[in-house]
C-alpha cells in the first residue's frame, strides 16, 4: 500500500527526492489524522522506519511545519509530534440536523485536529453544546494546547441566527435550540469568544474563499440535504439581510397548495425537495433508508432513487431560476449531502433553471458541485472565527 500511494501522488516514482517527498506527506497526513502522535507511533502508523521518521520530523520541525514536545509513553521518553501553530488556534463547530463536526485549526486555516459524530434527530442545545465543549477539550489535549490558546470559536447551525440577539431568528426550525443565545451558552462553557451563523452562510463563505466559488464576486451556495438553504455572496461578501435571515431558499413557495412544511407554510421547496420528502417518496417496504442511502443507491443505478433525486433537482432548479432572475449570480455552488449525487442532481437543476430563467443561456449562472464537500460549513465556521477575531482579539462576544 505504501508503494502504491507513492506512485499515485508522484509523477516520477522511484527517484530519491520523490520518495522523500511522499514520505514527508505521509507523516504530515498521519499527524493530521491523529492530532498528535509520538515518533514511535508515527513509525507504526506510516510504515516508515523509526530512523526515517526521526529525520523527517526533525526536518519538518526546522521548517516550521511540525512541533515536538518531550513526553512519555509506557514509561519511556518519547517525542510527541503535533502540527505547528504559530498564532493560536480557532475552533469550528458545525451542528447540522443529524451530524456534528468539530475542528481545531490555526489562523492560516490548517486543521490540526478534527472529529465528527452523528447526532440524534431533534437534538437539544444544552446536550450538544456540552458534547462540543468536551470534544474541543479532548482535541486540545491531543495537540498539547490549552483552552486559553483558543482565539475564537465559530459555530454553524442549520437555521438563521439573529446577529443582535444571537438567537435562532425563527422558532420551530430547530426545536431544541429555540429561544436561547447559542453564543452566550457556549461562551459560558468555554470562556472564549463565540460567533454563530447560519450553516449556509458559512458554507458560502468557505466555497467563496477556498472552494468552487473562488474568483467570483456574486455567487450563491445552495445547501441541499435534510433541509435546503442558501448562502448569498453579493459583491464579495456574505449577504445576511434584515435580522440575518436572508437566504431561506428552502422556504420559497413552489406549490401554494402543496404539502405542509415544518415552518408552518404550505408547498415550500423544502417540503417538496428536502431530505425527508425524498425519503418519503421512496418509502415502500424498502427497509431502512437514509439520505446517504438514497445517494448511494442512485449512484449504483437504482432507477427509483435516480428519479427521486432528479425530481428534487427539478424543483430546486425552478427556485434557483427565480433567484437568478433576481440577483444574476455568476455561479451557483451546490453543496450538502445530496450534492454527492453529482450530475444526477446538478443536471436536472441546470435543465429546469435554463428553462425558467430570463437571461440568455451564455449569461446564466453555471451550476457546479462544491469542492469542500461535507466539510464546507465547518471550514466556513473556522474562517468566520478567524475573521471575527482579527477585528480585535479581546472583544467580548458578539
Amino acid at each position: 500500500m505504501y508503494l502504491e500511494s507513492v506512485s499515485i501522488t508522484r509523477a516520477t516514482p522511484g527517484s530519491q527526492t520523490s520518495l522523500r517527498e511522499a514520505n514527508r506527506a505521509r507523516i504530515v497526513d498521519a499527524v493530521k489524522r491523529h492530532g498528535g502522535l509520538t515518533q514511535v507511533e508515527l513509525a507504526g502508523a506510516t510504515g516508515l522506519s523509526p530512523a526515517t521518521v526521526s529525520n523527517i520530523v526533525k526536518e519538518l520541525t526546522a521548517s516550521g511545519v511540525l512541533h515536538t514536545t518531550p513526553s512519555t509513553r509506557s514509561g519511556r521518553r518519547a517525542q510527541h509530534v503535533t502540527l505547528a501553530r504559530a498564532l493560536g488556534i480557532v475552533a469550528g463547530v458545525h451542528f447540522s440536523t443529524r451530524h456534528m463536526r468539530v475542528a481545531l485549526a490555526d489562523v492560516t486555516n490548517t486543521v490540526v485536529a478534527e472529529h465528527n459524530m452523528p447526532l440524534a434527530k431533534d437534538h437539544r442545545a444544552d446536550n450538544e453544546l456540552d458534547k462540543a465543549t468536551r470534544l474541543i477539550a479532548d482535541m486540545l489535549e491531543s495537540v498539547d494546547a490549552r483552552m486559553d490558546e483558543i482565539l475564537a470559536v465559530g459555530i454553524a447551525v442549520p437555521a438563521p441566527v439573529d446577529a443582535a440577539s444571537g438567537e435562532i431568528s425563527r422558532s420551530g426550525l430547530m426545536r431544541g435550540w429555540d429561544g436561547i443565545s447559542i453564543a452566550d451558552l457556549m461562551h459560558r462553557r468555554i470562556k472564549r469568544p463565540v460567533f454563530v451563523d447560519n450553516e449556509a452562510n458559512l458554507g458560502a463563505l468557505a466555497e467563496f474563499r477556498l472552494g468552487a466559488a473562488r474568483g467570483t464576486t456574486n455567487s450563491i451556495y445552495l445547501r441541499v440535504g435534510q433541509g435546503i438553504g442558501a448562502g448569498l455572496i453579493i459583491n464579495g461578501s456574505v449577504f445576511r439581510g434584515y435580522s440575518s435571515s436572508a437566504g431561506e431558499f428552502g422556504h420559497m413557495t413552489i406549490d401554494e397548495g402543496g404539502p405542509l412544511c415544518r415552518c408552518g407554510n404550505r408547498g415550500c421547496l423544502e417540503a417538496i425537495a428536502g431530505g425527508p420528502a425524498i425519503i418519503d417518496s421512496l418509502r415502500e417496504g424498502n427497509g431502512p433508508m437514509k439520505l446517504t442511502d438514497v445517494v448511494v443507491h442512485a449512484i449504483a443505478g437504482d432507477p427509483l432513487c435516480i428519479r427521486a433525486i432528479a425530481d428534487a433537482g427539478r424543483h430546486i432548479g425552478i427556485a434557483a431560476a427565480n433567484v437568478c432572475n433576481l440577483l444574476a449570480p455568476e455561479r451557483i455552488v451546490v453543496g450538502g449531502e445530496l450534492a454527492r449525487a453529482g450530475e444526477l442532481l446538478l443536471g436536472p437543476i441546470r435543465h429546469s433553471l435554463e428553462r425558467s430563467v430570463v437571461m440568455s443561456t451564455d449569461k446564466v449562472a453555471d451550476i457546479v458541485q462544491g469542492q469542500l464537500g461535507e466539510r464546507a460549513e465547518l471550514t466556513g465556521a473556522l474562517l468566520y472565527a478567524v475573521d471575527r477575531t482579527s477585528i480585535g482579539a479581546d472583544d467580548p462576544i458578539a
Partner: protein
Amino acid sequence: MTLVSDVSPDKHVVVDPVLTMRGINKGFGAVQALTDIDLDIYPGEVVALVGDNGAGKSTLVKILAGVHPPDSGTVTFNDKKVSIPSPAASRELGIATVFQDLALCDNLDVVSNLFLGREIGAFSLDEVEMESRSWELLRQLSAKIPSVRIAVASLSGGQRQTVAIARSLIGEPTVVILDEPTAALGVAQTAEVLNLIERLRERGLGVLLISHNLADVQAVADRCVVLRLGRNNGVFRVAEVSYEEIIAAITGATDNVVTRRAAATSANNEETSK
C-alpha cells in the same frame, strides 16, 4: 409554477430480513426472562434494542450468541431455520457479538488480538499477512489506532472498542451485535464508535445495538425495538418517533391500567357492534 411530480414510484424490491426471531421464550427457574419475543434485522440496518434493567436485552443477545438456548420459538437466519447451540455455531452462522467487557487480551498487541484463535499460517504464524490484513481492516473502519504492534492495554477505551469490533469482522459476519458499546466512553471515543457503527451499516451488515443512551440510539439507529419486562413493547422507526415516545415505551408509561382499560373497552365495543 406547479411542478409536483404525480408519478408515484413503483414498489421497491423488498429486502428480506437477514435474521428473524419469532415467539422466543426463555425462563431461568421461576423467572420468565423472555416471553414471545419477535425481532427482525435487515441487512444494512441498525436496530437498537432498548429497555430498562432486567428487560431481557442481554438474555436475547445471549440466545443469538449461542450462550443460552431458547426454551421455545424459532430463529431464522438467511431464510433457513437454525438452532444456535454454542457460541461457535453462532459465529459460523455469521453472527458476531461484541460483549460489553470486550474480551480482549490486554497483554497482546492489536494484531494478536484480532486474529486470536484464527491465526493465519500453517506451521508458523504469517505475521506480515496478519499485520497487513489488520491495517486494511482498521483503515476500512477509519479507525484511529496509532500502531497495531502495541499492547491493547495502552489503548484508549474507544480504541479498544474499535479493536473488539474489528475482531468481530474478521470472520466476515452478516450480523454484528454490540452490547453497550458506548458505556464508559468519553465523548471523543463515543464519536469514534458511532462513526464506526455507520461504517458497518454502509458495509451492508445488520447491526443490533444494545444501549442505554437514547441520544446514541437516535443518532445511529434506523429502528428501535423496546423490551419491557421480557416482552416486546413497541418497534419504532427512529426517524418518526420522538425521544419521549421511546422513553414512554421503556418505562411502561404507554402501558398502564388506564390505557389497558381503554383498549379493553374499545375491543369490547367492537365485538358488541359486530
